[in-house]
């Protein structure tokens, strides 16, 4: 009975599509109905918004709700069974894995440290980088560059990139910025035009106007990140209670969508790297 009704609806939909001439894909998943709930990392907001929007477009019967409560809180909600998926912008801790949570890395966030073209420095240790951002090192000649002051540029409070950078470098709330800019593009432009400047941006936007610094001798490239050797990276995890295969069909469809070409497109569009 249900199937018949569905067939009728599909026929009507197809007819409508034929008449209006705007074709939409994904009618094959059109039989999915229900809610998927996610909770967790605030840093994953951009990814989750874009992904859920795109997913709901392909599956009109499904509503995806995402709450941004922080990685730890999201995993707690998952363990308590109040959400389907717990978002975390870090790897799961052993205690969390012991609860039965399974780590599914859906994307990798990489951050490049950039300096202006005329700077002779090409490599920096993570220790010195932290010292530059906390204001202990103020001149490039202290780390083997020319005698010119360092202009420390960063993002505004609340920015996901700033959050990730400070967390990974363990300088959270200890940074002394000379300039706080409110977009990736602004940081890129400022660093490119200011002699002695240093800044950080998403890995995918680095272009030829600036130098992407090696950190501890590792170049900021997608290969190095996938190999796990580049420091300024973190996984975006959508943890589930048990393997994906054990989840309900909605959650399975969600992960299938993330791994599909359309899902990968979304991940790339928000500036993240696809894990392998």
């Amino acid at each position, binding site marked *: 009975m249900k199937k018949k009704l569905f067939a009728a609806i599909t026929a009507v939909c197809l007819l409508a599509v034929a008449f209006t001439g705007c074709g939409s894909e994904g009618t094959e998943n059109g039989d999915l109905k229900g809610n998927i709930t996610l909770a967790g990392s605030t840093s994953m907001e951009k990814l989750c918004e874009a992904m859920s929007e795109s997913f709901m477009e392909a599956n009109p019967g499904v509503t995806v709700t995402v709450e941004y409560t922080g990685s730890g809180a999201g995993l707690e909600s998952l363990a308590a069974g109040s959400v389907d998926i717990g978002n975390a912008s870090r790897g799961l801790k052993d205690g969390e894995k012991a609860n039965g949570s399974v780590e599914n890395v859906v994307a990798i966030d990489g951050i490049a440290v950039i300096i202006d073209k005329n700077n002779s420095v090409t490599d920096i240790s993570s220790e010195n980088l932290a010292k530059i951002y906390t204001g202990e090192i103020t001149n490039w000649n202290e780390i083997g560059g020319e005698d010119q002051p360092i202009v420390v540029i960063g993002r505004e409070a*609340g920015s996901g990139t700033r959050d990730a950078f400070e967390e990974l470098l363990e300088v959270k709330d200890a940074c002394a910025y000379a*300039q*706080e800019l409110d977009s990736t593009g602004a940081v890129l432009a400022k660093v490119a*035009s200011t002699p002695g400047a240093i800044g950080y941006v998403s890995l995918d936007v680095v272009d030829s106007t600036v130098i992407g610094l090696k950190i501890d001798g590792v170049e900021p490239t997608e290969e190095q990140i996938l190999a796990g050797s580049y420091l300024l990276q973190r996984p975006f995890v959508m943890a589930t209670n048990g393997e994906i295969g054990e989840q309900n069909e909605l959650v399975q469809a969600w992960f299938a969508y993330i791994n599909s070409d359309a899902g990968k497109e979304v991940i790339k569009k928000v500036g993240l790297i696809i894990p392998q």
Partner: protein
Amino acid sequence: MKKKAFIEKTANIILLICAVVALFAVCAITLYMFIKGTPALKEVGVSDLLFGTIWKPTASNPSFGIGYIILTSIVGTGAAILIGVPIGLLTAVFLSEMAGKRLGTVVGSAVDLLAAIPSVIYGLIGMMVLNPIMFKIERMLFAEKSAHQYTGGANMLSAIIVLAIMILPTVISVSTSSLKAVSDNLRAASLALGATKEQTIFWTVIPAAKSGILTGVVLGIGRALGEAMAINMVAGGAVNIPLPFNSVRTLTTQIVSEMGYASGTHRQVLFTVGLVLYVFIMIVNCVLLKTRKRGFEHGD
């Protein structure tokens, strides 16, 4: 006859509705700002919020002090007025008293053009021209002082200079028209008493146009206080005490730069920042009404 009365009445109602729209907008905005801006005052504490100097909204132990931000707005606006008003006033004197017809038209239309330039253009030029110059000066001045944090030229001074230029058109056009409105009898009387042209201007014409000039100054203050885009591009945007070579943030840029990703108390505090700005602008407007009223009482 009846038809005429009907048209009259309808026109009346339409005009009334239009007037109510403006009134309603002002009331709604005021109400909204107070409703949205006050919760954070309660949550953070009035003195901690308004006079605190540490701005770390996303720290694990967050601190929401906007004292330096308020101070920056006040100092920046004040300094821009100090630089912009004398230049603007003297330009107005030139336009109304000295300039011949041709030169007057040229300078006058240049001033009009200055007023029409979008603020983002001021910001762009400030960023590309002013900031590098400031960086050079900064490197010369602080060469021996290692305690100074280099800002790459994006500093308070850049913001002040940009603001001073941006308020010029307002000050000039309002002052010029009030100088021109001064009765020629006064000028003639002053000259007849043996005063030179300069003495006449500075001791007779300008005092007579005082309230109009003050109106221009107050409008300039309003413009400087409310400017966001240009300042956001040249001032650096870190929260610091407003010294000339520090990277600073004003009330307006505070909202612009952090609203995008702010949530929770952080977001509420940004509304409070908006409320503070709104109160400042209301004060400026009250002063404006007062100066205008005084002008009428004095009969010019």
